[in-house]
């Protein structure tokens, strides 16, 4: 054991040997050979690995000097400790000896640690220690997460010759009593390995030197754990319970270690300096190379000709089974040798991709390495849609409130409608990657600043500030205490979480200015403070802690509450959700589901659903619809608004009132029309003739109307094809938005000028001519037949059996679902809609679209695995909007903050 205590041989030899065997096995199993070899070399020849899963904090006391005790868990923001009085300790590499009363504590409450354990409801406290005396009591604090001598989250202590552990839960006191104590005599002045484990069900155990010493039930959730606790060694925070002795190692896990794992750590011994990078499971780098580097190239460059349908040369790369089987000329690659692989030879010679720009040097290097390393192929299916936005996650962009979110937030907080000035003053959001809430594109301009300032002024003018203040504090004076108290309470609501002292001080500065101003009042001070809060980053942005060394970390309860409410409602948490966050209920999966379920019953969730559909389907496009007057002389611009309203009313009916699966939007036999839109569609007008009815939407049962039924038969979507009712544009709409299909722009030597129909040649005929052209067919055959079923609808959504030239219009066609080897035939518009509604691909696409909207960012290959889980869960619960949103909100895409690389 690499320390100077002379206790290196404490761990029995048999255990050490067992540890070695275990270590080798584990490393070979978990890591690629090269990495395993490095890790092995990095470890002592006689040191088995320590358990790393769930590790949150690790102190190995590796520094031989200084006042900082470094956290070497290497998983997120380190929770370093500071030695208050260095004169009371002695340090050498691997040992910290506390010789006199001092405090070794974190400078700030270790939020990450507290959150992790609150969320898991389980923990392990482990310490290799050597007490200097047997008669230390209080208990003397060896490891504590506490505030003072009567308030703690946990304490591992020495009470005479016993180990004593206190833990706060809903069933114990604020002081963590009753405690669990190990057997009498469990602690001497000898080096000891102490482990306390507590699982989610409350089962608690104390292990001494790898053996169970005590067990009992400490019931109750940990949701009452306090945030303001500090982590400390050697004393209580108020320095009233000193512990003297030597520390060799202290570790805390966010789960209860099993008996075997306790034994494993005991076998690893004390004084194990944390290796550079604690052993943790790693994937074979060849697998990640394939998934993150090779698969995007194959998907983007090869599938156009080599998917299950096109299968040029008999090779289909869209599935693992067909890809590894090879094509007409045999296997596409030889394991472990690029130069002997046909695939590489063609790529290297720039013969592939055929008639496309050659791969770049970098792409070629990736392919070559992949083949030389064995051509590992992990994915069952290669879906190009997964790689549209790249393989790796983009940077974390915090989200500015959109105009709609700003309006809803103000409405929720102050019960006033600020929509008119907000929409007039705030610059409109710009769409990017299909939605207008894409975080990276939510920029801020001078106009925003001016608008936020003006809107804050308007809000405090409209709100009864005295009544608003009264909700939080009845009697207030200009004293620091009163104002600080008021600021904390108001701020917690407006800023969606507790305030830090720094913030209280900043806002109190405003009150101080007012106090020193003539004729000032508490009302005026409150208004000014609210005004400042309304312009602060914590109000205008959805602020989250993004920094951390690990790949991801759990959100805190208030961050999570905000994510949930803005995703589900497009607005801030209500009092109940906020209370759940404050009580720690959002660390409990069942509580989260219960909240989500409640929130999804609220009308605000419907309004948010409408925002999603309006944004996804780009209904605002209709605001500017200008069909050619010559071609559509009867067009009434008011119809565009009617079409928007039709689609929203339809969504409300199907998604909300009937709570049907999202995919039913494709074939639900109902719609809502104004009399003029009904006439435009050629449906009977249910108009009673008075003025009001002209604007009123009337429900239409379409069961017996063969021509209409479902989103795609509504004017709001049909108009996307432009005046000529372009099959290309309509087909691409279905392909991109519903099937998540990917096609490239036209290949060389094609005149892309749109062709108008004429006598004897309808748009369908033009499309068929294109598809008959071999050069065009590769892509056009994938998407234009999707629009055949819409040919009877003209550019503004009117229905006809013949076009303006007298050409008979048809409605049969085929669908090629992405990844399928064969086409699915449909005979009518209705059958097309039924097939789309029944398609797993369409259902999955809707999950993807809703997830993108909820997250406010394009989805990448790194999200694909979680999306699969979200979709499966949503479908198990009926595939409805509520089920899908519920699955999204409870997924790790929402629960965790990606921190990788964010420093």
């Amino acid at each position, binding site marked *: 054991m690499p320390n100077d205590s002379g206790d290196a041989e404490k761990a029995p030899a048999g255990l050490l040997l067992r540890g070695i065997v275990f270590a080798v096995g584990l490393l070979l199993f978990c890591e690629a050979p090269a990495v395993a070899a490095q890790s092995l070399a990095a470890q002592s020849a006689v040191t088995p690995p320590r358990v790393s899963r769930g590790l949150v904090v690790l102190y190995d006391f590796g520094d031989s000097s200084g006042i900082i005790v470094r956290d070497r868990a290497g998983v997120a923001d380190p929770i370093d400790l500071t030695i208050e009085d260095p004169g009371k300790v002695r340090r050498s590499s691997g040992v910290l000896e506390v010789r006199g009363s001092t405090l070794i504590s974190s400078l700030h409450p270790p939020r990450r640690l507290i959150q992790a354990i609150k969320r898991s409801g389980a923990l392990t406290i482990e310490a290799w220690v050597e007490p200097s005396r047997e008669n230390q009591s209080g208990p003397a604090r060896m490891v504590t997460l506490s505030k003072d001598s009567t308030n703690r989250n946990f304490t591992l202590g020495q009470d005479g010759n016993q180990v004593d552990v206190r833990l706060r839960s809903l069933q114990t006191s604020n002081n963590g009593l009753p405690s669990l104590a190990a057997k009498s005599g469990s602690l001497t002045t000898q080096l000891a390995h102490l482990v306390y484990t507590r699982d989610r069900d409350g089962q608690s155990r104390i292990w001494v030197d790898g053996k169970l010493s005590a067990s009992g039930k400490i019931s109750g959730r940990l949701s009452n754990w306090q945030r303001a606790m500090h982590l400390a060694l050697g004393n209580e925070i108020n320095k009233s319970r000193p512990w003297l002795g030597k520390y060799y190692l202290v570790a805390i896990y966010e789960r209860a270690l099993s008996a075997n794992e306790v034994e494993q750590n005991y076998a690893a011994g004390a004084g194990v300096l944390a290796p550079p990078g604690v052993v943790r499971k790693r994937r074979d780098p060849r697998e990640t190379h394939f998934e993150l580097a090779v698969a995007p190239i194959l998907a983007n460059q090869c599938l156009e000709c080599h998917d299950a349908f096109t299968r040029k040369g008999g090779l289909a790369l869209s599935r693992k089974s067909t890809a590894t089987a090879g094509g007409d000329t045999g296997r596409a690659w030889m394991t472990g040798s690029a130069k002997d692989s046909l695939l590489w030879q063609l790529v290297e010679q720039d013969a592939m991709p055929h008639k496309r720009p050659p791969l770049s040097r970098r792409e070629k290097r990736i392919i070559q390495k992949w083949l030389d390393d064995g051509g590992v192929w992990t994915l069952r299916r290669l879906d190009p849609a997964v790689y549209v936005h790249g393989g790796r996650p983009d940077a974390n962009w915090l989200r500015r409130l959109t105009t709609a979110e700003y309006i809803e937030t103000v409405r929720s907080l102050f019960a006033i409608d600020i929509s008119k000035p907000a929409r007039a003053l705030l610059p409109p959001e710009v769409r990017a990657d299909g939605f207008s809430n894409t975080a990276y594109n939510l*920029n801020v301009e001078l106009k925003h600043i001016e608008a936020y300032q003006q809107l804050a002024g308007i809000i405090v003018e409209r709100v009864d500030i005295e009544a608003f203040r009264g909700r939080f504090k009845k009697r207030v004076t200009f004293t620091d205490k009163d104002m600080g108290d008021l600021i904390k309470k108001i701020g917690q609501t407006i800023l969606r979480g507790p305030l830090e002292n720094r913030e209280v001080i900043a806002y109190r500065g405003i009150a101080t200015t007012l106090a020193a101003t003539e004729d000032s009042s508490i009302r005026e001070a409150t208004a000014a403070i609210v005004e400042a809060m309304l312009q602060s980053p914590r109000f205008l942005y959805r602020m989250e802690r*993004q920094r951390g060394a690990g790949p991801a970390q759990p959100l805190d309860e208030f961050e999570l509450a905000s994510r949930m409410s803005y995703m589900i409602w497009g607005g801030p948490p209500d009092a109940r959700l906020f209370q759940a966050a404050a009580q720690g209920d959002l660390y409990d999966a069942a509580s989260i589901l219960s909240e989500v379920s409640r929130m999804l019953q609220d009308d605000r969730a419907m309004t948010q659903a409408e925002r999603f559909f309006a944004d996804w389907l780009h209904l605002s496009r209709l605001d500017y619809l200008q069909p050619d007057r010559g071609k559509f002389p009867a067009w009434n611009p008011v119809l565009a608004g009617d079409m928007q309203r039709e689609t929203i009313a339809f969504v409300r009916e199907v998604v909300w009132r009937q709570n049907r699966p999202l995919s039913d939007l494709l074939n639900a036999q109902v719609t809502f029309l104004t009399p003029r839109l009904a006439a435009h569609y050629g449906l009977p007008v249910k108009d009673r003739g008075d003025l009001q009815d002209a604007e009123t939407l009337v429900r239409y049962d379409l069961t017996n109307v063969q021509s209409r039924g479902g989103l795609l038969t509504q004017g709001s979507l049909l108009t996307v094809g432009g005046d000529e009712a372009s099959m290309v544009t309509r087909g691409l709409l279905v392909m991109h938005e519903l099937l998540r299909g990917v096609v490239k722009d036209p290949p060389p030597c094609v005149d892309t000028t749109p062709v108008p129909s004429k006598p004897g040649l309808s748009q369908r005929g033009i499309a068929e001519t294109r598809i008959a052209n071999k050069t065009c067919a590769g892509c056009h055959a994938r998407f234009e037949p999707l629009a055949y079923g819409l040919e009877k609808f003209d550019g503004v959504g009117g229905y006809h059996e013949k076009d303006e030239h007298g050409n008979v219009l048809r409605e049969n066609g085929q669908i090629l679902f992405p990844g399928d080897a064969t086409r699915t035939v449909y005979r009518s518009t209705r059958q097309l809609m039924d097939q789309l509604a029944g398609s797993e691909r369409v259902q999955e696409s809707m999950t993807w679209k809703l997830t993108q909207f909820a997250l406010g960012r394009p989805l990448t290959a790194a999200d694909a695995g979680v999306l699969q889980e979200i979709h499966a869960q949503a479908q198990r619960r009926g595939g409805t909007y509520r089920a899908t949103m519920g699955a999204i909100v409870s997924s790790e895409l929402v629960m965790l903050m990606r921190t990788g690389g964010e420093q």
Partner: protein
Amino acid sequence: MPVPKLPRRTILKGLGGVTVGLPLLEEMLPGGTRAAPVAAAVPVRAFNVFFGLGIPAPLQTEGFSGVLEPLKPLSKKLLVMRNVDHIRADANGINAHFDGATAAFTAEAPNGEAKAGGPSIDQVVRQTWHPDGLPAGMVPTLVSGTFFRRSRVGRFVHSYNANGTVAAAMQERPRDVFDRVFGAIAPAGVKNARQLRIKRSVLDSVLSEYRYFTGARSPLGIASRGRITDHLERIREFEQRAYALPDRSGEDTSGPRRPLPSKLQHGGAADPGGQGIDIELDDLVSEWRLMADLYALSIEMDRVRFGSITFLAAGERLRVKGVYEYGGRPIYEFDDARDLNASGDMGCSHEWWHKFNPGKQNEQLRAHAHMKMREVAYLLQKLDQIADANGHSVLENSLLTVSTESGDGRHNDAKRELSGVFHAITSAQGRFKTGQIMDVGREGLDVYNTMLAAMGCQRRLGPVDREPALVDQILV
């Protein structure tokens, strides 16, 4: 030729009979810098000038006798570069309208519908010369333009931050540019010194919060901190305009006013479903020239040193009508819908690029491209009429990069479409050769990196593992 500086109360006469007033210009400038002697150093400036749809490479070979004719009066102050390629910017097939337009000034493929693959030239120069921000009161980046098609941001915005996001919001109406650059802000609810004191106190606490979230203890990651830093910069600009200016309420305010509201369609109405709009040539030119005047004035008053300006978007769809003349001689009578015998998108001038045929006259395309060059030249001439402290014009002292989206508009060959993309640059205080048309025959990435190196920038565009290849022949 450079002309003397404008008097304090400059009056800008717009072509449409619009007069623009600048009642507060001098006071907006920090620390009275406008009153400083002209011996002050010439500032580093960089601007990207974009025009839509491009000039097919074969037409560029005709030099100033073809569609480039309007640039001839400025030929001594420009380096026209031919055979500059952006082929590596082909991210999604061969449609250069979006890919090519985003590659203009970045030389990289886009990274999202509203995100470039990297920073634009002007922003790299800005970051190099002003890493801690521009002097107080200046507009950090001015992005403006006269354009209509807007389906993707890359079609019309041409200034990008290091992370590829847009460097500033687009100001698409002359009035927007005026407000953004010269507009004074009256803080809401301030009628007296008492209220001003309270508002200042509010703003102080707001500022302290933004500082915290951009500081060392910020819990935010890099991208988010950058966003909050932008916000903080805008607040400081707001503070400067709203609070740092003297009270001028008692002064004569009878001077000219902001430009009248634009007569042209903007926002979503300007791009009805990609179908194009009808537009009179005179209306288009009038608004563009007012925009160009304002942009030039913003530079002259040293309110703006970096940014981009766009004359028509990539893949612009307009059905233009009107008589086009140059130098008193008629060039062409535009009526695209008539000539194309089509309505909607198929009746737009865009189609002339689809129909380009090097073996034919391409009369309409030539006329449109010629007109675009005339309007680009209008802006350049404006900048050439402004004298800097060193006796040269702003045009000569600034790094101006003029470019477009493609070297061919037929969408039928990725290599051809993204090769030979028109470029012209200015000397940037003698750094680059001018007075010639040069067949560069290099990638845009190398050309841009050479320009950046000459401007003293360490940052290079493009993949990090790519060997730098300077284009010596453009350097003086």
